[in-house]
């Protein structure tokens, strides 16, 4: 009985692990995609829609983290205020507009608006980065956002 259960569990895990792999193969960053999905408890049992929503959640988490960093930079680097203001605006857009839009669209089966949201997350990150004219203190975070956005977009496109 236990053996049967174990066999079924392994079979399920094998096919689910393949689901993540198969999905990530179709994205521009296989390794990032796999590590994001594998590290999330929901990843093992999600369909494509669910995987897309996990990626949107990663975008949300990364945006939150970046906003924290932006806020801490106001004190440390007061000369960057103007750029930080613009970045703050851009990242707040990701959190308050892009993410909710993407979640609603993906859940309700109109993925193209989800695609708009995740693409825009990358755009906002790139614009923020550009505010520092090559001397950004946020590069690793904005770069991450751009990469995650690209992976998320590829998965959302599979829903079209």
């Amino acid at each position, binding site marked *: 009985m236990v053996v049967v259960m174990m066999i079924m*569990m*392994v079979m399920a*895990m*094998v096919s689910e692990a393949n689901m993540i*792999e198969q999905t990530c*193969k*179709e994205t*521009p960053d*296989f390794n990032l995609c796999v*590590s*994001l999905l*594998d*590290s*999330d*408890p929901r990843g093992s049992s999600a369909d494509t829609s669910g995987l897309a929503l996990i990626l949107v959640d*990663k975008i949300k*988490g*990364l945006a939150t*983290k970046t906003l924290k960093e932006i806020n801490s930079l106001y004190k440390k680097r007061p000369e960057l205020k*103007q750029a930080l203001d*613009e970045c703050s*605006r*851009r990242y707040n*857009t990701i959190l*308050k*507009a*892009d993410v*909710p*839009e993407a979640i*609603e*669209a993906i*859940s*309700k*089966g109109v*993925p*193209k*608006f989800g*695609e*708009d*949201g995740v*693409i*825009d997350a990358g*755009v*906002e990150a*790139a*614009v923020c*980065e*550009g505010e520092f*004219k*090559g*001397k*950004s203190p946020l590069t690793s975070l904005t*770069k991450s956002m*751009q990469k995650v*956005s*690209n992976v998320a*977009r*590829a998965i959302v*496109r599979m829903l*079209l």
Partner: protein
Amino acid sequence: MASSDALLPISAREEDPLLSDGSRSDPNAETHGRRRPVKGLLAVTFGLFFIAFYVALIATHDGSRSNDVKFESDGTATTASRARLAGVSEKSNDQLWKLSGDRNTVAFSWNNSMLSWQRTGFHFQPGQNWMNDPNGPLFYKGWYHFFYQYNPNAAVWGDIVWGHAVSKDLIHWVHLPLAMVADQWYDANGVWTGSATFLEDGSIVMLYTGSTDKSVQVQNLAYPEDLNDPLLLKWVKFSGNPVLVPPPGILPKDFRDPTTAWKTSAGKWRITIGSKINRTGISLVYDTTDFKTYEKLDTLLHKVPNTGMWECVDFYPVSKTLVKGLDTSVNGPDVKHIVKASMDDTRIDHYAIGTYFDSNGTWIPDDPTIDVGISTSLRYDYGKFYASKTFYDQNKGRRILWGWIGESDSESADVQKGWSSLQGIPRTVVLDTKTGKNLVQWPVDEVKSLRLSSKKFDMEVGPGSFVNIDVGSAAQLDIEAEFEIKKESLDKILGDASAAAEAEEFSCQKSGGSTVRGALGPFGFSVLAHESLSEQTPVYFYVAKGKDSKLKTFFCTDSSRSSFANDVVKPVYGSSVPVLEGEKLTMRILVDHSIVEAFGQGGRTCTTSRVYPTKAIYGAAKLFLFNNAIDATITASFNVWQMNSAFIHPYSEEAVRALSRT
């Protein structure tokens, strides 16, 4: 990939790679780690046993992978699915990213002056927030009604309900209260797109898609609460909704946007609804007598492989001989039928002309090589234009086309300015009786009522010239122009056997825009242009010689230099345009702040663009005539009108009461 990790509890999984400070993504993971030692040993034993099993499965699976993925050095995959990305939403993170690290990039911010200029003077838009698809357009008791997908809460898509506005002339609108909101289980997650049908007794039924509380897409019936109210303020949803649910074989999220119904020869009403089966776009057909119960036909109206989901399907007759609109139920030997669909994959509206067979509700295209949805098939518009819908205007015997024009800027800017999206100026649609192979669209005549002062010009423009056209304010304009390439220039090119043929290679999108000079083009107008030309939007003809020595004409809008902003999409749009023997080259351009609508050859090729200049705004927006050809001289004869604003009225109770009395 094979490891005992697959069987261990969640907490032992790798850390979230994005949280490099070592924090865990799952704060509850710790609790799963505790297990009794005996069970742990058992788990490990079985785990080791099944590792071998797992490895074996993976090894055999390796050989059966059908997609070969090659990663280029920057990590882009090149499978077929990735290829579907090409030509979609043109926003490219990658390009933007490359610019962002450049020390010379100008750090850019939108300010309120730039943003508030973007609102249009005479295009339909709500006072604020997000709009998308046109819904249920109709004419009733003296009023044109327009409904639309609307988000009352934000400047991005979401929480969709039906907005409503009325007009006497399709140009001067009054906003009304929301027509329908998400107040039933069958549309709790969205009151989506739908269409109106007039019954024989003159009453109206509305069919629309609801996203249910479980996010299933269903079709619902609604009708005006009071047919004596010309403003049709209130709508009642049928108590027996939904009237249609996804049929077997159709997924619950692939079933939306019901059309206006037409009468069959058997006396029933027939509708079609777009969907997909795998990657094949299809249109389902249903017959009904009462709009409450339906029989699904076994046949599809049409299907085209590899086109993906068909949204906002539209189906209507056009006259082969008369330049007028036809009621949706008209059929007969002098009639062709149009099937149009919005391609979810590419955000492009495509249509095809064909023949409808009423006996089994099917349709076949005249030219299957440009069947609906194929990338080379015809489009209403070669720019930003989607989810379009026509209706028969029984008031003036026209078929009128509405199209949703989204933004091409960042969502941050939309949030900052507080709104997103426009509708195009309504267009009449007829079959091109001269070519028989395409539709012709033209802004409704009523738009001319906005014309204020006009200036007429006749000039000859030599190669490489830019001429400032002084018309005063240049953000709201209507331009009608006729161009001719001087005969000597044409003869020279056609007679020169060594002059390379370029028509086969040329495309608006890929040939570098209006700065690339050819023998016979580009020439046209540059709108929303700064006097320094640092920002400008050229709308132009490019005439190219083909391999057969015949000339081919292209009509393009180049938005690549329309704005200094780094977060807007700036493509070159356009297409070839048929020019018949003896015809001069004609174009019409409607400029209205952040939208430019261009009509080539009387509306054979239409292109809508969204532009967001940062300097060429208010008094600094100018108009230029240009000829960037290498040798050819052109003559231009044109009229430029200043356009008044439409002063679209926000909703107010007094206004509505006043209107009700008229």
